[in-house]
């Protein structure tokens, strides 16, 4: 496939791995904060290719995994209301709330539908005026523009609303860096998040925390090049934002997408599953869009922040625990019987480790 195969060339990847080993005079610890990158790293065994020079730890980069139990529970409650069709992305159906998942709500007769895009939910609402269609919108800055554009196109619909749970990556990176004993020395930033926002918003983090940040793409050669760039900075003692993913990312991002987001959303404090409340890390609907807020429309309130019992996802998402070292990994907790969200989504660190079976 064009613009994919070019970056999976084994010789190119081996060339980068060799340069990384040559450049590193000691071991370095980097964190990626993108579920797609985590998936690539596990699938192509990148951790093994650069073992000894660089340890890659998988940060809170899977939006499904960090969606709080309170929002899943609210989705379950809304899905149980007669006449409501609750739409969301496929990965969300199996994420456990405090009393079951959306698949179980469907089994109890709830109208829960998997959609590819929020526009599918808008179309469903337009075709079924007697059904209240709710889009359970999750994801980072990559999916938030789709929700914003869908809402802007649904202004006239009285039977469409959004349960809004979008989150922002930079505040989560700061939360990781602020943790006591944080061992992260550099970051690979998420290429498609930065495609929307640009890389400029990361300059402040690089300065304040003294960490190099390299914006990276999703293919194996992209990730290896970004690791080499980050190691180069660490060896020189510099800490700036560099852009490996130049074919997609510019300094200031996509102004049209950002303008739509700023029309529809405001930032607010948000509970991250496994991490707790992170200031100004969530996107919610702005005041003039509150009539499209499913919580208001159906009189549902969010429960208090909830912490999973027996799941160590918080330590996994912040780099303190590698999934295979969790005592429940692969025994009580598997993709078929997930105790926590990182085992559910294919982008989750635990599911990626389980599927590709390598220990880093």
């Amino acid at each position, binding site marked *: 496939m064009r613009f*994919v195969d070019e970056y999976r060339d084994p010789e190119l990847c081996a*060339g*980068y791995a060799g340069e990384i080993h040559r450049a590193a005079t000691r071991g370095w610890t980097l964190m990626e904060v993108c579920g*797609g990158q985590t998936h690539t790293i596990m699938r192509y065994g990148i951790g093994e290719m650069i073992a000894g020079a660089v340890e890659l730890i998988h940060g809170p980069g899977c939006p499904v995994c960090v969606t709080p139990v309170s929002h899943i529970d609210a989705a379950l409650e809304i899905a149980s209301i007669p006449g409501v069709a609750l739409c969301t992305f496929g990965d969300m159906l199996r994420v456990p709330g405090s009393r079951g998942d959306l698949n179980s709500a469907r089994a109890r007769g709830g109208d829960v539908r998997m959609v590819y895009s929020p526009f599918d939910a808008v179309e469903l609402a337009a075709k079924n005026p007697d059904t209240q269609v709710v889009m359970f919108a999750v994801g980072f800055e990559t999916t938030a523009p789709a929700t914003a*554009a869908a809402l802007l196109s649904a202004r006239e619909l009285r039977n469409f609303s959004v349960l809004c749970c979008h989150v922002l990556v930079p505040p989560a990176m700061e939360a990781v860096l602020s943790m006591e004993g944080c061992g992260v020395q550099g970051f690979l930033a998420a290429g498609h998040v930065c495609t929307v926002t640009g890389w400029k918003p990361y300059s402040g983090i690089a300065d304040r925390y003294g960490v190099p940040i390299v914006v990276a793409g999703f293919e194996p050669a992209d990730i290896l090049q970004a690791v080499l760039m980050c190691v180069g900075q660490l060896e020189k003692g510099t800490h700036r934002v560099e852009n490996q993913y130049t074919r997609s990312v510019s300094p200031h991002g996509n102004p*049209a997408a950002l303008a739509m987001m700023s029309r529809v959303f405001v930032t607010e404090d948000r509970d991250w599953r496994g991490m707790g409340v992170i200031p100004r890390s969530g996107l919610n609907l702005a005041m003039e869009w509150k009539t499209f807020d499913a919580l208001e429309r159906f009189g549902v309130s969010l429960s208090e922040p909830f912490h999973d019992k027996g799941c160590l996802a918080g330590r996994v998402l912040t780099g303190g625990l590698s999934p295979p070292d969790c005592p429940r990994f692969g025994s009580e907790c598997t993709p078929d019987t997930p105790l926590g969200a990182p085992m559910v989504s294919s*982008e989750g660190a635990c599911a990626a480790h389980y599927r590709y079976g390598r220990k880093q």
Partner: protein
Amino acid sequence: MCLGIPGEVLEVWGDEPLTRRAKVSFGGAVREVCLAGVPDARVGEFVIVHAGFALNRLNQEEAMEVHGYLARIREMGREECGEN
């Protein structure tokens, strides 16, 4: 949800930026995509799409940079070795 691979724009329609749509092929799998974020995207160009929304147009001039960077790093390494 977030495994965004580039897709090729096959067909574009709609006059208003917000309602502009395209048929986009991802290695043969064709999806309808909102072009509100890249209203000037044209047939034959490649776009990155998440949740049915095109986030940008791929910069084809930069597409081979991942090869060029390694070549330059190796060249620098050779020069350093030569000097030593």
